[in-house]
């Protein structure tokens, strides 16, 4: 399960809006995916945009929840409640074995 080049660290920021249904779903879905595929080699920061509205402007947020993958490689943006696992993995460029 997810062996291979395990040394790369995934830096991710998840922007949510308080405890809205979408946000809570997104947090739990993402955590599940991360635990499953990126265990031990990811940094996930969860930001409540309600608390820091200025971030919304800085990060060009519109649709929420949004996940921004800062590293490795190109910056990548994913929106939604992360329920579509395939798309999340594709978006994060994780080569999953059992899709």
């Amino acid at each position, binding site marked *: 399960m997810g062996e291979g080049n395990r040394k790369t660290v995934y830096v991710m920021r998840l*922007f949510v809006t308080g405890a809205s249904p*979408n946000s809570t779903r*997104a947090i739990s879905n993402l955590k599940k995916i991360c635990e499953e595929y990126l265990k031990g080699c990811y940094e996930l920061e969860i930001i409540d945009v309600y608390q820091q509205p200025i971030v919304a402007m800085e990060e*060009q947020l519109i649709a929420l929840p949004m996940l921004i993958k800062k590293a490795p490689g190109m910056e990548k*943006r994913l929106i939604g409640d992360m*329920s579509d696992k395939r*798309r*999340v993995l594709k978006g994060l460029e994780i080569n999953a074995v059992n899709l």
Partner: protein
Amino acid sequence: MKPDNNKKQKKDDKKQLGLQKTPSGISGLDEVTGGGLPKGRPTLICGEAGSGKTMMSVEFIVRGATQFAEPGVIMTFEERVPELALNVASLGFDLEKLQANKKIKVDYVHIARTEISETGEYDLDGLFIRLEYAINTVKAKRVVLDTIENLFGGLANEAILRAELRRLFTWLKDKGVTAIITGERGDGKLTRHGLEEYVSDCVILLDHRVLNQISTRRLRIVKYRGSLHGTNEYPFLIDNDGIVVLPVTSLELDKEVTSERISSGIPSFDEMLGGKGFFRGGSILISGTAGTGKTSIATTFADGVCRNGERCLYFAFEEPPQQIIRNMRSINLHLDKHVKTGLLKFCAARPTLYGLEMHLVAIYKEIQKFKPAVVILDPITNFASIGSLSEVKNMLIRLIDFLQNEQITVMFTALNLNDSLRDPTDEAVSSLVDSWLLVKDIEANGERNRGLYVMKSRGMKHSNQVREFVISDDGLELINVYVGPDGILTGSAREAQMIQEETGIAIRNYTLNRKDREIMRKRQVLESKIASLNAEFESVEEELNKVYEEEELRKQILNKNRETMQNIRLSGEKNSKPKKPQNDS
């Protein structure tokens, strides 16, 4: 537009009960909407690309911030902030400065589908948070979303998007901000994505049409819930001061009129109009064939107005101002003087520069800015080249209407292409104007002279005589034409007639002089005769007197002698009186 405004004001007061309005500050738009956009509600401005949606919405925000102390938020989905600032800088808006002063807040929303993958349910809370943050930072009363439809390009899930947009507009209403949402015109629909479904309070449609290679911007209020509004298409103009919408003034004929007169600048011409000149606030048409001096009359009028210390706005559609000033120097009119003092302003533009409506808007704008007492349009003929006769007539009706409301006197000049009086341009316009002057060539004896007729002049006694119109080094003058046996005489024929009459007078004078001299001579002859007769009479008289004196003398001597004789005799007798004869002798 003062009377008009007052009326509108009253209407507004009534409407205050129903719907409150936020003045847009855009010249003319508030007249058309009867006070502005619906307060606290979103308004949709839709139109094709380049129809001026962004300009109009940005002006709404800037005017709000600068004139009505209502800060605003611009959320732009198309142009980056520096781009937008640069674009509206051409209208004289300094977005950066306004932002720095916390009067407005500009937020650029970037969204591109390629950079985003969707992984499930989402909402537009990010947009809401940003908007709220921006509104709170500047305490905004006005919001512009330009063009929110771009979200449809960036996000795939249209169902979510539509639900969120509906939520957004409700949210905006709850916030109590007056918002403008722009939308691109779609096929058969007002907007490409049907935004009109959500924004139902006020919809303004902008249009940019090109007809005969001349473009005209137009604006129409498609809907304005709960308010009366103009339903026409109104032309508008974007220039270096922003947007100007031209309200088509109502064609009600209930204008105030004055019986105050304004001189034409030519005293002898004022005489033709009852001695006082035109009515203030009236309209005057001068028509004539080429080279009959229409511009000279117009500029003389302008000169007279300026010399009275009033303002005159001169629209030159054929000649550049410098050329007019130079040319008029030859008839002793120094217009540059008035230009320097700021009483006279020239606005020169080719009629073909833009459409009729745009001309009207441009004229309207200049008049609003300069506030003249007199407006001159020289000439109106070329407008026919950019519009049909009825269109030109319509435009002039509106212009005259507007000017009459403002109590501004207007003078048009029109070129007659043929020599007949029934020129189509004249026909179209002449029924609208209050005074119509015709300058006509009178051709006789191998020369061409100008005759001036007053075709009509409402409400005043005016001469029915043809006057000869003379342009000299000293200016313009009207001269009574000579009526000879062959009709009226002008030019050198008139001069000849005058010389002839002068000769006659000289000859008569000469004859009279000769007779006078003869009488004098006769008198002299007779007087000398009388003198000689007098002398003769005197000598006869003297003669006669001499006889008398001699007689007297003789008488005396005789008496003396007699006395002497007596004395001698007496002394002989008594010798007592010897003294007496001694005394006598």
